[in-house]
């Protein structure tokens, strides 16, 4: 055992492997910061090249790229309200307001620390409890997914802003947009009006870029000419505004740990993904925070919760992959492909047949986290200078790069048009104080919720207990009890306030 661990560690820490991780991280961080280019895309771009590389150069590079892109996406989310990837959308909620206060560096540093913490937390969980977590996660079927997504939709109410009805309307709007495309059960077109492009459904990336980045750019462009000539973002010169103090980190630590655990659990369940984890953790952090009124105005806790959760998903995605050979998301599926190219079949037997390789993966993951922490500091310094470009130049450039990013994913001109349609919709919504984030959450969760609800109903029709069959599923009952308990705690706290 110890021999295997040491051999694995040696394999992952050769100079070539370390350079590969380093290069992968740099490329990933830059790629992740480009709106529209997601971690999955970063991995997809690199997979073909790994075939020509030594396995222990290609695989560490791939893991580094995956981790780097996750952090990179939060940089643009904080500085210009343009998440590099959907997973960083929740980071916008507090990262951008904090950057507007001149504390962009503090926000980015908190994002970096909580990202690395979340990532390391899920990697440790992967190392010590992969088998157990995977077996728990695989007990989650359509009824549990339905319950979990329904709970998440209810939690959205905590993100609705000042006016509850506007927040709810925004959720419903997102849900309707999420239903456009082929019906998940019958595959009949829904709300497409024979428009072929709509049959694929509305892409998350164009919607995200449009609703968050373009709408904000349109609002910013209304500023007086004098302000548009000034730099996009100003950074405070006070030292305290450019660092995360130990006291601030300590204050956020319980939230970071809780969000990392939540992200790990969601990552272990195939299909939900980092975006859902980030919003769910953000809602949960706000609900249990001592300072919920700070959320949405630049709360460090808000940034920490979203970043810890979305990065925890990355390591946790490897749990079902390593334990059962089931990829948790597209990026995990691509990583699995890269392993197959190198002749390693992931699954239960890999622990017996390739123990050294498994420990090498674990070592590479941990090393990548350490490198990410140091490289992230340099990326922060570099990005600080980018946003000193005047607004009247930066915003048009952002819109063009965002359009290219939106096009890149599906190669569809329609996606570029969607970016601006959603940008204009978001602009009018913001003008009328209708929050846009609940719309995004409604959009992300509805397809998962609807599909699982309908599959649950289909399952119930062939079960002797009918719909009551969900009550004999232990995972469903445990989840239900957790949700009821958290609702009771929430209402008790509200009453005490």
């Amino acid at each position, binding site marked *: 055992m110890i021999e295997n661990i040491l051999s694995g560690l040696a394999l992952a820490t050769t100079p070539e492997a370390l350079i590969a991780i380093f290069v992968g991280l740099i490329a990933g961080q830059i790629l992740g910061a480009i709106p529209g280019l997601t971690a999955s895309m970063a991995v997809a771009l690199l997979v073909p090249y790994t075939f020509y590389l030594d396995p222990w150069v290609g695989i560490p590079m791939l893991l580094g790229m995956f981790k780097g892109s996750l952090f990179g996406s939060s940089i643009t989310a904080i500085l210009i309200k343009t998440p590099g990837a959907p997973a960083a959308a929740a980071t916008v909620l507090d990262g951008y307001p904090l950057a507007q206060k001149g504390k962009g560096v503090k926000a980015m540093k908190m994002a970096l620390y909580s990202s690395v913490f979340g990532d390391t937390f899920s990697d440790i969980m992967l190392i010590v409890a992969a088998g157990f977590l995977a077996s728990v996660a695989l007990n989650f079927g359509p009824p549990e997914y339905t319950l979990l997504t329904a709970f998440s939709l209810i939690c959205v109410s905590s993100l609705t802003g000042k006016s509850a009805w506007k927040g709810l309307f925004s959720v419903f709007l997102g849900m*309707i947009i999420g239903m456009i495309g082929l019906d998940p*059960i019958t595959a009949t077109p829904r709300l497409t009006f024979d428009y072929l492009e709509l049959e694929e459904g509305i892409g998350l990336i164009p919607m995200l870029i449009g609703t968050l980045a373009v709408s904000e750019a349109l609002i910013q*462009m*209304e500023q*007086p000419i004098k302000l548009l000539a000034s730099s996009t973002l100003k950074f405070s010169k006070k030292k305290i505004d450019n660092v995360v103090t130990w006291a601030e980190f300590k204050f956020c630590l319980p939230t970071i740990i809780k969000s990392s655990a939540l992200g790990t659990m969601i990552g272990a369940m195939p299909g939900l993904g980092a975006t859902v984890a980030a919003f769910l953790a953000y809602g949960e952090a706000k609900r249990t925070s001592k300072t919920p009124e700070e959320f949405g105005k630049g709360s460090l806790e808000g940034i920490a919760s979203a970043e810890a959760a979305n990065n925890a998903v990355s390591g946790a995605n490897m749990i079902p992959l390593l334990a059962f050979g089931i990829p948790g998301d597209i990026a995990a599926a691509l990583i699995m492909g890269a392993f197959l190219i190198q002749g390693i079949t992931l699954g239960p037997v890999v622990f017996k047949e390739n123990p050294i390789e498994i420990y090498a993966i674990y070592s590479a993951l941990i090393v990548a986290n350490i490198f990410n922490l140091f490289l992230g500091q340099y990326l922060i310094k570099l990005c600080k200078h980018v946003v000193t470009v005047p607004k009247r130049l930066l*915003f048009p450039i952002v*819109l063009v790069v965002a359009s*290219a990013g939106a096009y890149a994913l599906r190669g569809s001109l329609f996606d570029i*048009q969607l970016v601006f349609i959603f940008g204009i919709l978001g602009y009018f919504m913001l003008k009328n104080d209708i929050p846009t984030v609940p719309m995004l959450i409604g959009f992300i969760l509805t397809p998962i919720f609807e599909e699982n609800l309908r599959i649950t*109903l289909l399952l119930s029709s062939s079960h002797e207990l009918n719909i009551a069959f969900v009550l004999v599923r232990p995972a469903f009952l445990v989840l239900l009890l957790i949700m009821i308990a958290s609702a009771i705690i929430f209402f008790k706290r509200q009453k005490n306030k």
Partner: protein
Amino acid sequence: MNNVKKLNEGSLILVLLTLTLFFNFWVVPFGVTDPENFGYKDGLAPSFAVYVVGILAFLTLIYQFIKVFIFKINKVTNSNAKLNSVNILSITRSKKIILSCLIYSFLLVPNIGFYFGSVIFIITLSFLMGERRMSILTVVPFIVMLFIFLGFEKGFQILLPEDIFFKNIFGRLN
């Protein structure tokens, strides 16, 4: 003339109510076709979830309508004040910017390609936002396009919408 100003809460509810009714009575019936004899045992009809959400949106608005118009509970937010402080010239500019965005995505990119369309778009927006230095207006868009070309097409092997002018220029970089 000022069509981007914030509507008051009552008007906003009325506009959204009309849109919701239009959605429930026109968009859903014409936009979703359920298979015959499809019901609960088959996992619900495709239109079911759409109707549920449409009705929930309608009920939310009706509730707010009653609050505002019948019980006169109307919290006025301070955003109007924020809007009034915005220069009328800025509002006119925002209309032009929105129009530019639509022209860029619906006309320029599909017809003349991504690179040339984007150059025109960047120049137009920067000009609308007060940039008058010719050196900046002419050089910056081309540098941005070069970076996008090198990053997307050469680096990531992602081909952007075909371009009638730039293809010949950048093509020589191969």
